[in-house]
């Protein structure tokens, strides 16, 4: 077996900084501090199933909101004049590349009890609403941060859709609504699927958004992991076990999504 010489440094790098660290996570997940094999850490993770459930629900809600809000956006972008499409896509990507900490922090300013929205509301005579430190604020933060990851893959697929297929459907007597549900939407499923994973994975594992917009009152998987490694309950063994479960969960979720994707392709 011959490995290309130019590939060697990269392979060594990946082995040391990608593969070995993941192995360490697995080893730590099954070790006691004394270095013996144990299942205790994994069993302990079960105690936090409520945290997992909460994170998954928050992540799913944000992902579904992203699909509902992002799909029309992607569709509309694919319908504007070709030369303007690139500009719009660039405008979509610019916020994505600005410090997401600062943007989330800015939402604190907007949503706070004495923040901009409530200032506005009280100036027009409506009583203040409590928005920050609620699950809604966290979902908003996730949708805000990850929406472009939903729009871009759907747009890429829609922009590639063959106009002739749509025309054929119209010629055969389908109305606009029918063309959309029977032709355009099924063809765009792969984009929705990759958007789903690209939004769901960071939403379910975030710990900044929940900390900043949830005010620490809503505890998610990311917080739990962070606490085991850098918090006051230092326990990298349990932390590794939680990370491992999170990783497996995402692998399973992606497997299901890929399955959906290939079934859809087989049908069409």
């Amino acid at each position, binding site marked *: 077996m011959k490995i290309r010489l130019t*590939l060697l440094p990269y392979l060594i790098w990946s082995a040391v900084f990608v593969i070995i660290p993941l192995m360490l996570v697995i080893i730590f997940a099954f070790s006691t501090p004394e270095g013996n094999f144990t299942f205790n850490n994994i069993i302990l993770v079960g105690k936090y199933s409520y945290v997992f459930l909460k994170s998954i629900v928050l992540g799913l809600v944000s992902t579904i909101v992203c699909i509902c809000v992002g799909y029309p956006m992607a569709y509309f972008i694919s319908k504007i004049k070709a030369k303007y499409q690139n500009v719009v896509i660039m405008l979509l990507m*610019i916020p994505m590349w600005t*410090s997401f900490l600062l943007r989330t922090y800015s939402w604190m300013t907007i949503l706070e009890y004495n923040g901009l929205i409530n200032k506005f509301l009280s100036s027009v005579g409506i009583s203040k609403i409590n928005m920050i430190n609620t699950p809604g604020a966290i979902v908003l933060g996730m949708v805000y941060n990850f929406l472009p990851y939903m729009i871009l893959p759907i747009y890429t697929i829609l922009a590639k859709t063959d106009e002739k297929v749509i025309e054929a459907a119209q010629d055969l007597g389908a109305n606009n609504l029918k063309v959309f549900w029977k032709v355009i939407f099924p063809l765009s499923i792969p984009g929705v699927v990759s958007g789903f994973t690209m939004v769901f994975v960071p939403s379910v594992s975030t710990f900044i958004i929940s900390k900043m917009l949830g005010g620490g009152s809503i505890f998610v998987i990311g917080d739990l992991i962070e606490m085991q490694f850098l918090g006051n309950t230092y326990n990298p063994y349990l932390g590794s076990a939680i990370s491992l479960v999170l990783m497996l969960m995402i692998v399973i979720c992606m497997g299901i999504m890929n399955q959906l994707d290939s079934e859809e392709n087989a049908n069409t």
Partner: protein
Amino acid sequence: MKFFRKIYMFLIFLFLYAPIFVLMVFSFNDSKSRATWHGFTFKWYHRLFENNDILSAFYSTMLIAAISSVIATILGTMAAVGIMKSKKWQRKMIMNITNLPMINPEIVTGVSLMLLFVFLYNHFGIFKPGIVTLIFAHTTFCLPYVILSVMPKLRQMDSHIYEAALDLGCNPTKSFFKVVLPQIMPGIVTGLIMSFTMSIDDFVISYFTGGTTQTLPIAVYSMTRKMVSPEINALSTILFLVVFVLLIVINLRREKDKNSSIYSEY
């Protein structure tokens, strides 16, 4: 319908840009308040350049971004060339490893690297968490993006030109530098700029691998935990403008040659 479409797009952009706009406006606010306007001032910009903590964090961030994006670009380009020449099953396997850090949640990448660095430090006394470990960590998460922006360029390239150079008497090394490199340069530069911006913006992985070293995102994070100073707004305004300019440069390049776009990889 067309009107509705425009309104919808406008609302989405309003949603995406409103927080950035708020940040920028309040960097000129003559008060510590984050929600009330007290008049225009430049004082936070002056204070920013006298704040040694922020400046040294800025310096570390730039140093880490520069070194790790250069290493990632060199290693990534070499890897992309190697991957293109590999057999199909090897290529598939290597691409799976390449995709791993992109699929894995950032927090898992962060803690896994932290475990590695702590382990190496405790057993061999190398890789004390700090700037060096940050450079290694950042290079690791930038590498896939470089590979993914160089590969399409290599795929587009006409391999006959490379063979022609060999036929005309160039040795492989020389024909790589004289023929292949100029053709894949746009992909390499896109990869470099992407790595640089991602490194500047990274928080989660740095948070776990940096020890006590302050980079800008970490400094911002620790400030948001306490009372926040508007100097951070001033800093974010400057950073936004820098990233904005960098992105326009990337996109102008992309405009110049359409096929190097990174999102065609999805």
